[in-house]
């Protein structure tokens, strides 16, 4: 895509999310949709992180751990340290990135299914730690997290306190959607820069990359830290919306879903996780009608989709374009 086409596409996308969707919600009086779509946006951010670890050739089923750590970190910063949400949120991401460096250095030496298995365990470790540690308040979790306060920058008031909004769900919706767009713009820039090509080289062949002088362990950890940062930011905003965080806020099932979102959207496309999250989230809800068969149908459809569309939903659009 040429830069002008990119800018146009981004503008249309932002217009739809920031103007069309709120308008549609007001007309149809489906106010609960704000909450649903906020969740989708946050899950998409966390999935975007998982996508980046796929990009360096690692199957990551541990993003739930970082979402949980991010949620707890921001809750503790806000409730116990009295920090503003606007500082606590990025700080929670940084905490996750730091934790992921410590965890990633040893485990990123593993490849394939071995790495995947270890990450799968991480989510459970995070949950059990949240239950056991004194600072996380065990099974009671951290509740009554105050809503985000006013956001100021260099003395200018950019946003009033969320408590003052009549429609708080709408305010959160805008926050989540803007954050999602920022995160994915940053990811897009990353994979289209030389850094992205270095990451791609890692995915293709780590031995060859290191013999070309690439510091493979450092680059791997960098990608994993960015991935975990996104997981942490997603978790932090989630905790703010729910005004609470519990050990069960993010579980192994969430970690698996983050991964499935990437598969479904397409591992070859940076915006894949966004589409994957949207489709998967609503697909699951729609199947609620099927009652006890919900999981069966859901899993069956996922398996079929992976067989028929191994490169994800976005490959539909791109393969047709190529054929034309």
């Amino acid at each position, binding site marked *: 895509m040429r830069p002008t086409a990119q800018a146009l596409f981004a503008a249309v996308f932002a217009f739809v999310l920031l103007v069309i969707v709120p308008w549609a919600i007001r007309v149809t009086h489906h106010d609960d949709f704000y909450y649903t779509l906020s969740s989708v946006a946050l899950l998409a951010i966390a999935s975007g992180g998982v996508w980046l670890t796929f990009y360096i050739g690692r199957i990551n089923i541990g993003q739930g751990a970082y979402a949980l750590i991010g949620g707890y970190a921001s809750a503790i910063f806000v409730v116990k340290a009295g920090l503003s949400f606007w500082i606590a949120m990025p700080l929670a991401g940084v905490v996750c990135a730091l934790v992921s460096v410590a965890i990633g250095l040893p485990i990123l030496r593993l490849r394939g299914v071995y790495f995947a298995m270890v990450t799968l365990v991480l989510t459970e470790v995070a949950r059990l730690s949240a239950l056991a540690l004194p600072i996380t308040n065990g099974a009671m979790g951290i509740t009554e997290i105050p809503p985000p306060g006013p956001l100021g920058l260099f003395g200018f008031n950019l946003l009033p306190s969320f408590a003052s909004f009549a429609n708080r769900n709408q305010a959160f919706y805008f926050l989540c959607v803007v954050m999602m767009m920022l995160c994915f713009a940053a990811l897009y*820039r*990353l994979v289209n*820069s*030389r*850094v992205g*090509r*270095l990451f*791609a*080289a890692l*995915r*293709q*062949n780590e*031995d*060859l*990359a*290191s*013999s*070309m*002088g*690439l*510091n*493979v*362990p450092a680059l791997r950890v*960098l990608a994993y830290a960015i991935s975990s940062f996104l997981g942490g930011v997603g978790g932090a905003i989630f905790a703010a919306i729910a005004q609470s965080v519990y050990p069960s806020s993010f579980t192994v099932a969430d970690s698996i879903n983050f991964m499935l979102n990437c598969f479904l959207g397409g591992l070859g496309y940076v915006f894949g996780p966004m589409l994957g999250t949207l489709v998967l989230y609503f697909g699951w809800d729609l199947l609620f009608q099927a009652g006890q068969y919900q999981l069966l149908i859901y899993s069956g459809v996922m398996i079929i989709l992976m067989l028929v569309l191994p490169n994800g939903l976005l490959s539909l659009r791109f393969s047709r374009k190529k054929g034309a």
Partner: protein
Amino acid sequence: MAPILQVKNLSKAYGGLIAVNDVSFEVERGEILSVIGPNGAGKSTIFKLISSFVKPTRGEVLFEGERISGLAPHIVARKGVVRTFQETTIFKGLTARDSVVVAHHLRSRANLIDYYLNTAAARRDEDEFGRSSDEILEFLGLGEVKNEIAGNLPQGHLRALGIAIGLAANPKVLLLDEPFAGMNHDETRRAIEMTRAVRERGVTLLLVEHDIAAVMRISDRIAVINFGSKIAEGKPAEIQSNDKVIEAYLGVEDESIGI
């Protein structure tokens, strides 16, 4: 002048199995030295020891007088000792040109943040890498196929691409892992020309190879390995007439051709 690469009393044991036993040789600046030996003689292990993908049990490798054994592979590459891999080991999913551009990493002057923000320094690097990649690809006869996905290229081109990726890293010593394996007569001839041309660029070459005929034609000197130990070293003519070599290597080779 001092040798560019010195292999000193190198040994590697895997448990009780001694893969390489007290091997020493030196590579002079600008020469082509080949390490040959029958299958399982320990050639590949020597290769991995020199490029530091494997740590020696005893002994050491010196590059320009400095010990490189035990350093991380990317540090060894940074110093100027770059290895290639056998045939299909390339960046399969990237185009030929992108592979070579990525491999210019060691010539980077900008850092990762520059690249992310696409600063002037990053753009200067990118321009330079692009130009240099085009030159290298042209040099190795890959100009026509540079925008193909590497995984789709035929064998001959893959070998050339492997060398192109190696050259992009600006090596002083380039280690080639079986550059003639599985090639027919014509392909071998072209590969030999290519290897000589690489030497003309001022790169010292160390080959690990199985194909004796090709090695005899291209090498300045040859070291012969059998059962992990060096049994001979010298000019091709000396190796050809060495009784030990004929017994240990050529005899076995005759049989293996029949299989």
